């Protein structure tokens, strides 16, 4: 972040309680103007609560919220300069599309001519000019989502908040809307905060991702930084598709810069580490992404699995198998490979991409990107 970088949204030490339950704990995030920030995490991790706190729909119990440098901690939602798109679209069913989009302006008592012009402008931008006289029930899911985005656009806010806006759409439409949202972000250049539990959405849309779990931030970083250098086991497991394999490995030797581990039924291999092990540790959790396996050539196998299920995706093959000791392994290899169920398959591992996690779940191999 450079000195002249403008902070659009600043969340400082925010905490939120529901009775005795701590929903958000010590949340600290700075969002740069024009940034597309994605909050991601499993259900119940607090990402939607945080978004509602930013919007002012929930009061925070501690900390400060600033938008455009202004303290909005106690400000009412409509004075915060934010607009929100909801998961269920939240369109007013008794109003037409035009009335839905123009509603914020009507409440702000803007002149009718201005409302009409702004609604038409938003309709053109979102390609829904022909739908303005319809009611929400007469629209498809994708069209409803556009109207919801339109109602947010007409606010001309400092920050757009998206609360899982694509999760009610089918897979094809989701991809289409994802691209459109990215285009919209490029066109408006406005700060966007986007909540999702879909890590593919997070990876493809974000400038930076905030991974949340149990009301706390696990890691903040660029998508590839999280993929390549997850801070801990949770982030390694959450970011990346198919999910990372976690296998118990025996520690053969531990030096300052490398730890040699051995997987069940495999041969030992060294892994470069950036953190030292604290005390003697007989085993470590080894994290290997499915993409970092390859089919071993003669004698170069790091481990051998017994094949259980094979999925042919055309350009790649997913192989699900088990290591000796019943530990599951998922392998993703390029091209089409025909492997029989129950066959023994020799695999090589890209040692530079292997991750080691200590007993606290911290990644010992944070490599520079």
């Amino acid at each position: 972040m450079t000195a002249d970088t403008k902070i659009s949204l600043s969340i400082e030490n925010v905490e939120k309680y529901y009775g005795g339950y701590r929903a958000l704990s010590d949340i600290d995030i700075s969002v740069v103007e024009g940034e597309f920030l994605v909050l991601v995490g499993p259900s119940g991790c607090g990402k939607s609560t945080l978004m509602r706190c930013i919007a002012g729909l929930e009061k925070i119990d501690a900390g400060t919220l600033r938008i455009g440098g202004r303290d909005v901690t106690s400000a009412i939602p409509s004075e915060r300069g934010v607009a929100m798109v909801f998961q269920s679209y939240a369109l007013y069913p008794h109003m037409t599309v035009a009335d839905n989009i123009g509603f914020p302006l009507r409440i702000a008592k803007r002149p009718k001519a201005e409302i009409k012009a702004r609604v038409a402008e938003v309709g053109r931008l979102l390609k829904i000019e022909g739908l303005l006289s319809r009611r929400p029930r007469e629209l498809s899911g994708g069209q409803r989502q556009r109207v919801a985005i339109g109602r947010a656009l007409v606010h001309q806010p400092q920050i757009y908040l998206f609360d899982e806006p694509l999760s009610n759409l089918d897979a094809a439409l989701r991809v289409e809307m994802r691209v459109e949202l990215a285009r919209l972000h490029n066109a408006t250049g406005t700060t966007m905060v986007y909540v999702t539990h879909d890590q593919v959405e997070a990876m493809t849309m974000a400038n930076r991702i905030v991974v949340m779990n149990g009301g706390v931030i696990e890691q903040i970083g660029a998508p590839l930084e999280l993929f390549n250098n997850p801070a801990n086991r949770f982030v390694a497991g959450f970011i990346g598709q198919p999910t990372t394999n976690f296998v118990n490995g025996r520690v053969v030797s531990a030096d300052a810069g490398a730890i040699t581990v051995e997987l069940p039924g495999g041969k030992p291999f060294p892994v470069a580490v950036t953190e030292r092990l604290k005390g003697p540790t007989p085993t470590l959790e080894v994290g290997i992404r499915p993409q970092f396996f390859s089919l071993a050539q003669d004698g170069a196998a790091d481990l051998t699995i017994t094949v259980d299920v094979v999925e042919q995706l055309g350009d790649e093959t997913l192989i699900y198998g088990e290591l000796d000791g019943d530990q599951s392994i998922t392998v993703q290899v390029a091209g089409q490979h025909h492997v029989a169920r129950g066959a023994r398959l020799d695999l090589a591992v890209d040692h530079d991409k292997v991750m080691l996690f200590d007993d606290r779940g911290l990644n010992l191999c944070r490599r520079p990107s």
Partner: protein
Amino acid sequence: MAGISQTAPRRSPLMRLGGRILAYSLVWAWAAFTIASMVWVVLSAFKSKREVLRSGFRLPSEANWENFGTAWTVGKLGAYFPNSLILVTVSVVIVLVVSAPAAYVLSRAKFRGRETLTNVFVLGMAIPIPMLFIPVFSVLAWLRLNDSLTGVSLVFVAISIPFTVYLLTGFFSSLPKELESAAILDGCTDFQVFRYVMLPMAGPGLATAGILNFIWLWNEYQLSLVLLNSPDNRTLPLGLYALQNAMQYTNNWPGLFAGVTIIIVPTIIVYAILSERMISGMTMGAVK
């Protein structure tokens, strides 16, 4: 919910079928009885005095429209009809205007004592009307509103509020909360959220409350009998009672049935206009 479905005893398909047959039989029997009674009343309203006791469900040999004339003029239903229409319509409108905001606040606002207040409204439904005769009469006398349609209207509003608030509270609770949040972010005040978003969406609930109150108050007899003394202020149920007394001495049963037919027509019209919205209100969980 999951807990309920897991612990609910599983019934065999035969038992389910038996239960369904029993339920459908009861509903059909009830519907058949109601329809048969109404058909009999309407048919009898067109028959002559001789025909009415002999022909049962047979069509009248000729339509005796003069029965309606007798009920309207001799039975003075023509004079009582506007009393009932104005009294009930005004009362229902006031009940809805008062109850809808109250129900919205009770269903959505967070404040200490909300549940107690809701329970007080529910408790209001349990008070038997005869218990209110003396206090209501005294209060109206003190307000100098005894024996007046305005006074009865106030009482109608008061006794309808508990049920209406209860009904609408359930309805408002079933509306999506995200719409409220969206309206707040769009700049609405609490009242604007209610006025522009929640109230229009509560149309089916309001229709349900409106129609149920209309039918109830249209047929209300006990309070009207106690509170209205002047013949000029009588409502249709009181008029019908007077008509019954008059007709039984002249054996003019068709005239009485014509009176009954005149009285049920407005409720059928109101139901026909609002029933679709009322049914959608019921299926949205407004009526439990």
